[in-house]
């Protein structure tokens, strides 16, 4: 087990190094310079700024400086946002993103599990059809459209929530719901499939024949056993939350890293784009690892293989 985890952690570092290297050289390939927006700079000024940012050194030196900096937790300096270090920029903005992401995840998984379980218990009835249709609709509405619909009705028309600002819990509700839609739909769908499988198994039959009420059967046996595979969709869910946050934070004016990422793209702020890409993949890799370990703990039948053989 320990050997497996250590091996995975080593692989995470290798992957991050490759991702960092690829993004670094991609950014260098990009046309244009960080000064494109400021046409009035003289050649001397550009030279001075290049000196300051170390942009006139050979590419390989720049790469070395970047990787060494990365190992020390230094992601470089932002070209656009008041010369702030990227790490500072990110650490200032990660709070709101984490809060909304966590809330969305809780709403999404909880309601998703509930919806999926109800659909499975009442399978092939109208309840099932409604739940399934709801899940498909949830998958079909792009999150930015859903966010704007929520904003229009709940914030603009009914004035229950603030339209777009970041100030306390009440302003985080709408974005969390908007972000939770996709995870909710996916969880519900996955949960239903699993639960239908479990409900037709022998031990459920046994539980029923022992005289347990159908409620007890579902709560004590079916629900627990169908929850195990649901753990595996946490990975894809994290991806959905990360990419979703980019538009949701924009729509609701939340000072988070998703909004920062979009801003950096639109202003060619390469160090910030690189920093955030590395951050996103680091988070994702850690989540994948945690999910795999959790899965092994929850379901002892699954042995984490140290060889990492074929699936």
């Amino acid at each position, binding site marked *: 087990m320990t050997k497996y985890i250590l091996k995975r952690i080593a692989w995470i570092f290798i992957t991050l190094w490759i991702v960092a290297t690829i993004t670094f050289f991609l950014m260098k390939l990009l046309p244009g310079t960080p000064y494109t927006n400021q046409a009035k700079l003289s050649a001397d000024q550009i030279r001075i700024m290049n000196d300051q940012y170390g942009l006139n050194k050979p590419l390989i030196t720049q790469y070395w400086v970047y990787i060494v900096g990365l190992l020390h937790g230094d992601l470089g300096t932002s070209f656009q946002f008041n010369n702030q270090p990227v790490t500072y920029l990110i650490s200032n903005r990660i709070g709101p993103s984490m809060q909304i992401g966590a809330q969305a995840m809780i709403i999404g998984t909880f309601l998703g599990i509930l919806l999926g379980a109800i659909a499975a218990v009442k399978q092939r009835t109208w309840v099932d059809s409604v739940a399934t249709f709801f899940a498909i609709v949830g998958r079909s509405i792009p999150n930015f459209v859903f966010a704007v619909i929520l904003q229009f009705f709940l914030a603009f028309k009914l004035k229950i929530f603030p339209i777009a600002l970041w100030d306390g819990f009440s302003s985080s509700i709408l974005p969390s719901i908007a972000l939770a839609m996709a995870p909710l739909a996916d969880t519900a769908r996955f949960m239903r499939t699993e639960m239908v499988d479990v409900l037709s198994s022998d031990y459920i039959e046994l539980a029923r024949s022992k005289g347990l009420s159908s409620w007890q059967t579902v709560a004590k046996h079916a629900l627990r056993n169908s929850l195990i595979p649901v753990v595996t969709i946490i990975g894809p869910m994290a991806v959905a939350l990360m*990419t979703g946050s980019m538009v949701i934070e924009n729509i609701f004016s939340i000072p988070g890293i998703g909004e920062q990422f*979009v801003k950096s793209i639109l202003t060619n702020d390469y160090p910030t784009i690189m920093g955030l890409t590395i951050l996103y993949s680091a988070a994702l890799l850690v989540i994948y690892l945690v999910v795999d370990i959790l899965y092994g703990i929850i379901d002892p039948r699954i042995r984490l293989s140290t060889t990492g053989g074929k699936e």
Partner: protein
Amino acid sequence: MADNVKITPDSFKPANNQDNTQKEEIQAPSLTFFQDAVRRLKQNKVAVVAFWVLAVMIIIALLAPVIAPHNPNTQNVNYANLPPKIGSGNIPGFTGKGEVAGVVSDRYAAAGVSKGTYYILGTDYLGRDLLSRIIYGTRLSIFVAFAATMFDMIIGVPYGLISAWRGKFTDIVMQRIIEIISSVPNLIVAILMLLIFKPGLTSIIIAIGFTGWITMARLIRAETYQLESEEYILAAQTLGESSLKIAFKHLIPNMSSVIIINTMMTIPTAIFFEAFLSYIGIGIPAPNASLGTLLSDGQKTFRFLPYQMWYPSAVIVLLMLAFNLLADGLRDAFDPKSSR
């Protein structure tokens, strides 16, 4: 008591078994795998409706230059932000009247639009016809979706096949590459690729196609591993068939349902990606219409001119919904064991 039933020797004659051959005869025509799937699909009413909705949308998209009432990119600032109107404005919701500073008035008269001219879904802030822009935007979405899916098939299927077929070291290396790519969220890979290429249709298709093939490659690899041990593959190998021929003649036809289902699942994702990228402003460049740009334009004014937001939203939701429902129907039809 006993004499009621008359038993004659005739009762013990063997029954007439002449027709047995006829009983055994198969009456229904034998169906191929595809015919069977199509039959199951036709029984699924939701999927059939989704299919026809999509068919209509695709036809409209294909015939966009003929159907669109106006040129989608022609600007006419005098006619900016006109509300929806049909004919002479007798249909509720399409009256051509709008509210300005709390007073409802005929915006068409105010803008000095000539009598016969009307815009079914109104115009945007530059006076461009919204309906035409939505039609062209849908056309673009559908085009991007199909092109990106082709891309996904062209990379994903061979990648999975080669990875599983060659096995050993090749497989390990190819799987590591997949792991690295999937350690960065898809959309971010697409965005990084878009930053390198010039913005435009081709770049979007490449960027979406490049990120979409991972799932396909994984599925095909798993499927190939399963099929590899089948006897007919062994037989083909024994007969000296080349790997390429085995792939095209035996493996791919047997995986066709996996390929079809996964392709159908990829299409809504591709449509979403394109809309997303255009929405945040790095997709389709300015004058051209995409559902994503229409949505972001509409959102800016949705408090005052909500129709500019509702119609594009409705279209993209309908499009995604239809693709998702059809994909679900196809999966049930091709793979009846997995009931949803």
